[in-house]
């Protein structure tokens, strides 16, 4: 890996988990 690869890696590493973690953070389902 070169410097440009590292820069892209860091960018992806900080963006990629966002949708999953935000989705998992949804409120708990209401129990009837």
């Amino acid at each position: 890996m070169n410097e440009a690869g590292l820069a892209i890696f860091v960018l992806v590493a900080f963006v990629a988990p966002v949708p999953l973690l935000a989705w998992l953070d949804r409120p708990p389902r209401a129990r009837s």
Partner: protein
Amino acid sequence: MYAGHFAAGMAIKAKAPAAPTWGLLVGIGLLDILFGPFVLLGIERVSLTPGVSPGFSLDYIDWSHSLAMAIVWSIAYGALFARYGMRVAGVMALAVFSHFVLDLPMHPPDLALWPGSSIHLGFGLWRSMPTGWWLVELLVIAGALAYYGYRARTERTFGGRVWAVVLVVLLLHIMNSPWLSAF
């Protein structure tokens, strides 16, 4: 620091549930999200240091990571969320600035006071504790996620899958370990 930033984002969410989670999580990573394009554009410089922890040297990151620019990015990012109210905007700004605070113990002195400043901050755990830094970050993650889990149970307006969040953040931390890292 990597996964610790995400843990901090979840802890901030726990303190301010009205703040959108995606916005917080982008905020905690914003300085590094900017770092990537800045390096590609030649505005900032990094070099690889194989065999020397953490595997790279952040030679010039003043526009994304200096103290002054961290404050600027925090205010600018918070302003994007003004329509959510001042509290949420402030929380978003705090999320961005938390990145600088958490980077401070890990980075060697490469965090300038402002772009071009000769004064650089950083306590250098990456260098002085080539594997120990990972355990220090693990403590940060444990504390932040414990708070997130506690608040999720009492608030019930977020955090419906606390254990899945814990698992994902821990996986990110394991992937970034000095024993597995690509650097």
